[in-house]
């Protein structure tokens, strides 16, 4: 009976391990949910017109250095803007309140990340602050459309003064 018992325990462990692996693959890989350690740092929100394909977990960087992660991406149902919650690591607690946030692309085909450009205020961002100055993701298709539109109007005749250039978005 004893060797049989060891065998059954071994089989049970194997089956449990296998199903745990299956569970991990089917629940953690698709969609969100994987936690990378204990979350620390403070939460800051920023509203964007368009976040492109920014995802939960994307990096937040300042001057090219990673200072936090995107905690959540939701839509404000009133203003129709994307509200991005950023989790900034606690040691970066002296970011000026009037800093700006922009959605950047890592490389030509890389993923999106949030870039923070420092402002000049003496008041710093803290838990619950909102970044007022934001710049949306550059959608490549829109850029190409605008380029062709301005190209066509320039070819259409009058001056190529660039008066029809797209107004910068806030």
């Amino acid at each position, binding site marked *: 009976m004893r060797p049989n018992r060891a065998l059954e325990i071994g089989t049970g462990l194997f089956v449990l391990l296998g199903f745990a692996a299956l569970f991990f693959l089917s629940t953690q890989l*698709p969609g969100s949910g994987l936690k990378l350690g204990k979350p620390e740092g403070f939460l800051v929100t920023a509203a964007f017109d368009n976040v492109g394909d920014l995802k939960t977990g994307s990096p937040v960087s300042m001057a090219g250095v990673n200072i936090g992660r995107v905690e959540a991406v939701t839509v404000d149902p009133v203003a129709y803007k994307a509200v991005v919650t950023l989790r900034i690591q606690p040691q970066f607690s002296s970011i000026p309140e009037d800093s700006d946030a922009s959605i950047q692309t*890592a490389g030509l085909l890389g993923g999106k990340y949030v870039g923070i450009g420092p402002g000049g205020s003496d008041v710093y961002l803290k838990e619950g602050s909102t970044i007022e100055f934001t710049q949306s993701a550059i959608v490549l298709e829109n850029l190409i459309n605008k380029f062709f539109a301005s190209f066509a109007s320039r070819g259409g005749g009058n001056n190529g003064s660039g008066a029809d250039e797209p107004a910068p978005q806030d």
Partner: protein
Amino acid sequence: MSLSDGLIVSGLRSIGAVSIFLGRTLAQIPGSLLRPRLIVHQIYNAGARSLIIIMLCGLFVGMVLGLQGFDLLQRFGSEDALGVAAALGLLKELGPVVGALLFAGRAGTALTSEIGLMKATDQLTAMRMMAVDPMRFVVAPRFLGGLIALPLLVAVFNVVGLFGAQLIGVQLMGVDPGAFWSQMQGAVELDDVTEGVVKSIVFGAACSLIAVYQGYHAAPTAEGVGLATTRTVVNSSVLTLLLDYILTARFL
């Protein structure tokens, strides 16, 4: 003329023989389910004992995937997509196929030589004389054990491989861990996981069937058992890759 004729006829004959054997095995499965202990024993033999080699190989396959994927993606400046590449590669192809090949080498050969030796030492005949059906008590539990064990082994392989890729990509090459996981979670669908699971079940059935068939039909000599073991590995590997193509074409 006569050679090709012989090849065709013998090919047809072996396909028919395997199909009949599969039918007989399936018919015995309800009976063998009444003896769960036999199946548990076979899951232990085929699964738990293959676990170490599967985990080790999974780790190295994942690490190679991390290195190669990083080197390739770096040229396009999109090494953040390493997680996607590793996860899809492991889930859809490498996990089921490499897992099945390892399974054929580790567990399939053990099944074939075990049944072949039982036959060579007249144990199967003795069982029949005692009105104990070896199809029910020897073949069906082993087939079921392999069928249950391989999908679980492949799942473990995938998880370990993923962490191997993560180890190389994130710890060694400096891919951002958030981008690694978030892009992976954004790109992997439940369908991709399902495809891998379906593949591993099909491969598990194919490899187990070939292993028990070759053992059951081995010539009852030392040489015959050796030949049957070799045929198990060769046939399982070829059939796995062939079925992989068919299943991939079906799922795309």
